[in-house]
């Protein structure tokens, strides 16, 4: 796949092996600025591994990942681009990730969680960071939880704090790894609602999810993965309406 100027994220011929198991089998994939891409597919299809390869929480075995023009090339399970460590930090600073299990810092309040990156990575002064943190938590509907520790928050509230923590870093791309999978059904709505708002604000998002309604409503592109390969990439109308791919149809029928 050729990268164009508009591509914010570009992955080419990406593979990932865990021992003998080949989880990603040559992925080509790109995301333009402002696009919302939703990755769906059966469990074990490699969706999460692909997402985690974009910020090197998983080291790709081979291929390349480029974010905002910064490219990391992999061969033999190692990054062969010069200054790999700095490259990773650079790309990580342009991306932010929201995890399935929230991963809030339990020893910090909601506000401290949100401003930690600003203070200790971007060296923003604490009062300034706090103002920004309060603004984001208010946006998430959590103005009354600013000084509350994660243990006193519900799952949906935790995930919204985590989203605020990611937004605080002003990333070029937001990565969501099954952000609602650990939540009770009645708490999913509040998280999906803030994700809709973020999508509408023009933020580039890559979302791994099982929430088909969300994909249908919000996605610009739906990527369907199965068995380590991308089977289909289409706008949601096409994907949900008229996909001719057997595996896609089987998947959609299975979960409907």
């Amino acid at each position, binding site marked *: 796949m050729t990268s164009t100027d508009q591509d914010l994220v570009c992955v080419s011929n990406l593979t990932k092996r865990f021992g003998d198991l080949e989880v990603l089998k040559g992925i080509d994939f790109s995301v333009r600025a402002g696009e919302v891409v939703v990755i769906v597919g059966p469990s074990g299809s490699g969706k999460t591994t692909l997402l985690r390869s974009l910020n090197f929480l998983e080291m790709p075995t081979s291929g390349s990942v480029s974010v905002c023009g910064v490219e990391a090339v992999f061969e033999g399970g190692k990054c062969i681009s010069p200054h790999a460590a700095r490259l990773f930090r650079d790309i990580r600073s342009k991306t932010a990730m929201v995890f399935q299990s929230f991963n809030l810092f339990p020893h910090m309040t909601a506000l401290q969680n949100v401003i930690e*990156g600003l203070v*200790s990575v971007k060296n923003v002064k604490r009062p300034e960071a706090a103002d920004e943190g309060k603004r984001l938590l208010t946006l998430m509907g959590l103005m009354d939880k600013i000084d509350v520790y994660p243990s006193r928050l519900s799952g949906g509230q935790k995930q919204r704090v985590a989203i605020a923590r990611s937004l605080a870093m002003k990333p070029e791309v937001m990565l969501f790894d099954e952000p609602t999978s650990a939540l009770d059904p009645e708490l999913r709505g509040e998280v999906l609602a803030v994700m809709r708002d973020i999508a509408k604000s023009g933020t580039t998002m890559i979302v791994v999810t099982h929430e088909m309604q969300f994909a249908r409503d919000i996605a610009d592109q739906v990527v369907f993965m199965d068995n380590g390969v991308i089977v289909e990439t289409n706008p949601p109308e096409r994907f949900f309406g008229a996909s001719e791919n057997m595996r896609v149809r089987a998947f959609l029928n299975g979960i409907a």
Partner: protein
Amino acid sequence: MDLFLRALPLFAMALPITLFLGTSSFIFGSVLGMLVALMRLSGVTLLRWGAFAYVSIFRGTPLLVQILLVYFGLPRLGIVLNPLASAILALTLFSASYLSENFRSGILAVEKGQWEAAATLGMSRIKTFTRIIMPQALRIATPTVGSRLIALMKDTSLASTVTVVELTRVAEQVGAASFRYLDMFLMAGVIYWTINQLLTVLQMIIEDRLSRHM
């Protein structure tokens, strides 16, 4: 009763020595132990092996042997330490071997997701460690580290073998002078027990404070 009154000022003088031996070697041992734990967890093979060897040696030999080696052995190498310094050095080296394992298990018990969340924020490894991992690791390690401090307080009694005048040494001396060993060692035992009960309460308070938000 008169013996008790006679021994009291001597115990009063020895008590600070025992406390000093215990707390100073705990503090030095913690610093060294944390260093050894980090070496053991580092990606550098040589550091990992060094840490492994350290723990193997100082956890695998009796403290009494270590104290005697420091006191009688180091002068052979031209290093002459007074009894108190010898005891502190040996207790530090010994406790660091155990404490490093306590810290290591605390660090390993912090969820992998915490490292990942910090990494995705762009935090450096050092920042991640000091701001995110350490506070959680120390909370997890508090019970075992507390036990180690209590054990160390009792281990200070071995300093008596190299003539440090701490609680056990006083009990021995007054016992020898009065032939009332039983009474003297009982008194020493009660004092050790009291110190350690206070430490236990302190540990409970610290644990409570650290896990307030968990």
